[in-house]
């Protein structure tokens, strides 16, 4: 069991598509909340294989594309300070701010380092005690535990020069805002498997209880997505609405409580601005009692 190839089996995929065609009778819109699901749907050509009357809509997407201009602008402004070393995930490099991007700034010689893990930002802070290392903290709940653990570790180890420019986002409040405003009709939701790995099922139950929509927590391989579509179509055809879990090899009902506890220790829920969606209550987080690890103060010597 490698947990990947097994879920890319072509014969099973063809069988699942037949099942979807058999059960699906009505035109529906399904929303995949997660950008990685959107990529998988395209990469494996799944959209073209489904009945024409099943329309897939892309949801809020990913923490990178919802990061607003102002956070990018602030990161750029900080990277221009000679006492700052900015650390960021590679995905953020090309995101445009108002007038520039981190990629352009790096090309112009700013101290911007691409890191794979927030722990690398902590290492940079230890290696460069004369600099303020600012980590551009973006991420949904999938990434927040890693950021939280790094912040708590920096605190425990007494590393004073690691700062977090906090642009993290919370998914359930955004889905609530989406369902409340609902400009596009959505009949069912494909829930982000790796956000649910952390949060579990409960934070998403409101989708069925309050909005009477079915939702399925799904993995990212072709068979995962096809099974998720089948589960949603099946619920819609039977006029049911519950939150089901397709991704049982990873997602437990209670999520990952250790990870959730780290997030709660490090951050407090706050309002947040989403590019394209506006301000959403409770959809961001701030640094609670760890203010000294927040944005570095304005320049006051090096």
């Amino acid at each position, binding site marked *: *069991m*490698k*947990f*990947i190839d*097994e*879920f890319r089996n072509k*014969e*099973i*995929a*063809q*069988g*699942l598509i*037949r*099942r979807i065609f058999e059960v699906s009778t009505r035109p529906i819109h399904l929303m995949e909340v*997660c*950008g*990685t699901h959107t990529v998988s749907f395209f990469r494996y050509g799944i959209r073209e294989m489904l009945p024409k009357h099943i329309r897939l809509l892309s949801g809020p997407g*990913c*923490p*990178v594309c919802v990061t607003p201009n102002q956070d990018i602008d602030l990161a750029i402004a900080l990277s221009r300070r000679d006492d700052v070393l900015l650390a960021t*995930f590679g*995905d953020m490099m090309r995101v445009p701010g108002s007038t520039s991007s981190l990629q352009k700034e790096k090309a112009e010689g700013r101290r911007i380092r691409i890191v*794979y*893990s*927030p*722990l*690398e930002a902590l290492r940079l802070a230890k290696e460069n005690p004369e600099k303020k290392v600012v980590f551009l903290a*973006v*991420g*949904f709940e*999938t*990434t927040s*535990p*890693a950021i939280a*653990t790094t912040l708590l570790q920096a605190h425990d180890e007494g590393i004073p020069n690691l700062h977090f420019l906090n642009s993290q986002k919370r998914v359930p409040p955004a889905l609530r805002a989406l369902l409340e405003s609902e400009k596009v009709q959505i009949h069912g939701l494909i829930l*982000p498997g*790796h*956000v649910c*790995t*952390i949060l579990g099922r409960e934070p998403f139950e409101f989708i069925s209880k309050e909005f009477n929509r079915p939702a399925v927590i799904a993995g990212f391989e072709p*068979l995962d997505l096809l*099974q998720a579509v*089948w589960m949603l179509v099946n619920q819609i055809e039977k006029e049911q609405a519950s939150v089901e879990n*397709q991704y*049982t*090899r*990873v*997602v*437990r009902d209670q999520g*990952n409580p*250790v*990870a959730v506890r*780290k997030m709660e220790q490090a951050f407090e829920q706050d309002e947040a601005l989403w590019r394209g969606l506006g301000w959403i209550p409770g959809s961001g987080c701030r640094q609670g009692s760890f203010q000294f690890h927040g944005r570095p103060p304005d320049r006051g010597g090096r």
Partner: protein
Amino acid sequence: MCLSVPGKVVEIQNNMARVEVGGVIRDVSMDVCPDVVVGEYVLIHTGFAIQKLDEKEALETLDLLRKMAEIQ
């Protein structure tokens, strides 16, 4: 961004593990995934194991899918 990959734990020391992903060994923090033993698979995201993979559930899902697809 939320991309995460499965890997097999080959060594654990304190809160760090060496995890094999597609033939490459990576150092991974086990801070939020403490109850894992060598030989088990974990899901890795930004240098952290975020969950243990459940082989029994994976096999059950595949079994169900084969039945749905009418493949024995």
